[in-house]
């Protein structure tokens, strides 16, 4: 009996001692030598493993940029593939340091999950995809349709709102994984597949015959996607936030992966502040003086990241649209680095 009690106390000691274990994320990451980054289970353009197991995508590049800022090595990332419904639990429990998984910023997620959104990497909206053979031209013609959707997403609620607002009936079939959802759509269980527009283009590539499917013109919601970090560690929140701002600022300043070393020698005051040749802004973040050039060297600026993963340089071919810089008609904007 004594032995049992002792064993029980020992077994539970870690549970009891774990109070406040998440306070210093930067130190934890440095000690581990790896950034734990929550990504999707495979969404081309955002986070997708290739046949060799290397992850690529816009969300993946955010993690690579953060790793570069800390370690000066974008490969020091451990990718944790998460389903939509498991992602927040993984972040809350400390399994991942950053959740960079095409997650929509909403008020309730920002306030009730114990996490913060560090910025917006992609301005998206929800859309519908149908088979061309159905000859549907508008989402308003979808009355009484069956809709396949991935569970645990804002998509489910937007869908309910949209059909209710337009007084249309529908049947929803919700699956846990993106692959199951697409498979059910392909097998004819549903007339419609709905998710963020970028996701529709990405998933369409996985279908047997992408040309047989069409994305309808309606965008029914605002879906600002961005990385999340846990509450309670403002330094870490700042690091992820300013990594994103750094990427956008680099595009604004015309700094690219190719010319970063040359630009670092510039005499312009804002260049000197960003590159750390003047002042210690990087150290104020808890990083090194050359954090900015480390990031750009690893992944390029935001524009390069976009074109490579989802834009003209990728299979998705999505136009910049809202994701253009603020001074070129888009919404991407970064506060000054000073």
């Amino acid at each position, binding site marked *: 009996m004594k032995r049992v*009690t002792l064993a029980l106390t020992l077994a539970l000691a870690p549970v009891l001692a774990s109070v406040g274990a*998440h306070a210093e994320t930067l130190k934890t990451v440095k000690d581990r030598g790896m950034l734990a980054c929550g990504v999707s289970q495979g969404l081309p353009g955002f986070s997708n493993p290739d046949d060799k197991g290397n992850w690529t995508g816009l969300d993946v590049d955010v993690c690579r940029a953060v790793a570069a800022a800390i370690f000066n090595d974008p490969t020091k990332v451990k990718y944790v593939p998460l389903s939509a419904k498991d*992602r927040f639990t993984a972040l809350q429990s400390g399994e991942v340091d950053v959740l960079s998984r095409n997650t929509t910023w909403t008020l309730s997620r920002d306030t009730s999950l114990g996490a913060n959104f560090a910025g917006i990497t992609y301005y998206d909206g929800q859309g519908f995809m149908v088979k061309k053979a159905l000859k549907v031209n508008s989402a308003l013609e979808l009355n009484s349709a069956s809709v396949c959707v991935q*569970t645990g997403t804002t998509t489910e609620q937007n869908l309910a709102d949209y059909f*209710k607002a337009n007084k249309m009936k529908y*049947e929803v079939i*919700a699956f846990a994984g993106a692959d*199951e959802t697409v498979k059910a759509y392909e097998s004819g269980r549903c007339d419609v597949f709905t998710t963020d527009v970028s996701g529709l283009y990405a998933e369409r590539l996985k279908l047997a015959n992408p040309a047989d499917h069409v994305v309808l013109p309606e965008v029914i919601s605002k879906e600002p996607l961005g990385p999340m970090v846990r509450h309670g560690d403002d330094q870490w929140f700042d690091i992820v936030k300013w990594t994103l701002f750094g990427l956008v600022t680099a595009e604004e300043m015309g700094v690219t992966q190719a010319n970063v070393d040359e630009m670092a020698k510039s005499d312009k005051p804002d260049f000197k502040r960003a590159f750390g040749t003047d002042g210690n802004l990087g150290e104020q973040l808890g990083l090194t003086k050359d954090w900015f050039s480390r990031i750009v060297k690893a992944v390029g600026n935001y524009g390069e990241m976009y074109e490579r993963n989802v834009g003209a340089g990728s299979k998705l071919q999505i136009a910049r649209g809202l994701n253009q810089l603020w001074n070129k008609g888009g919404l991407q904007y970064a506060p000054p680095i000073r």
Partner: protein
Amino acid sequence: MSIEARLPPAQYGLRLKRMLGGKAGWNGIILQILFVAVLVWVGYEIVANARSNLAAQRITSGFGFLDNTAGFDVNQALISYSGSDSYSRVLMVGILNTLLVSVIGIVLATILGLLIALGRLSPNGLLSRVAGAYVELIRNLPLLFQITFWYLAVLAALPGPRQSISVFSTFFLNNRGFIVPRPVEEPGLMPFLIALGIAIVASIGLRYHARRELFLRGHVIRIWPYVLGLLIGLPLIVVLIFGAPVVFEVPVLKGFNFAGGSRIIPEFVALTLALTMYTASFIAEVVRGGILSVHKGQMEAGLSLGLSRGTVLRLIVVPQALRVILPPLTNQYLNLTKNSSLAVAIGYPDLVSVFAGTTMSQTGQAIEIIAITMGVYLVISLITSAIMSFYSWRLGKRLGA
């Protein structure tokens, strides 16, 4: 003068000591109390620690979210449900969907399992080999794989709604499900139900009378013609007087899907099919083992009395075998219920899918939701075992064991 036997002293202290400490005496009692105290302390620490950590990270906690509006729809609800209902309603919808697939699965798996077991024990070599092959094939394949297989197989075989397989233009089968006419209540429903109730009660009375006659006087009374007359005749007369109890609303193709009628969704069919077939293979082995545990002399004795094989099985072998069968059978029932949570893979809206899935990711309150979900499965399992224990106790009493 009568002499009263002197009662031994009550010895409450000793009894308490035995109850708590067993053979270890007072030391044992102290240890027990300490152990309980440690357990309570550990439990308290876990709850308090979780609460303070959640509060420190400003994660919402508590059960207030149950009253919030869910805002998403579910494609199969046994109670009326819409997106503007609360999360507690979602919980009920999920529980009922889990219960539906579990209860139907249990009934079908028991019947199928019994048939396979009898097939495997049959002297017919072909039948017993087929049954044996079924058991070995089905129980050795992972259940998740079987569920996905049936789902995709069912879907692949069925046409779209516009090319539905139709039976008399009233029943339709397509990849949106099996669409049947929906009964709509008419004024004649109440008298019809009353007549049916009277017929059932009268039939039970008849059976009771027939058994008394058989046991007390040895008269065999054929009651089935009367029972049939009661069950069909009485409601029929009522229908002729009061009119039809229900009318059927025939489904019609409208837009993408059928409007009107009721629909059995393919997710439900695939899940029930897979759970039934999988669990039946285990039940078959349980039943076979139970029947083999009854000494073969019982069967021989029955046959030598001139009873048929079926009658011997029904009256002599199975009741004795049931005592061995019931405990492992209960395990299979519990397994089936718990396995139904694999529904999430094929989009059947069970408890895990709508509550521990969608609701959890919308509210982010993992601890509360997982606790509720575990509680629900625990209660369902405990009720199942209680029912089976009661049945087993009654069986034991009837067999005089």
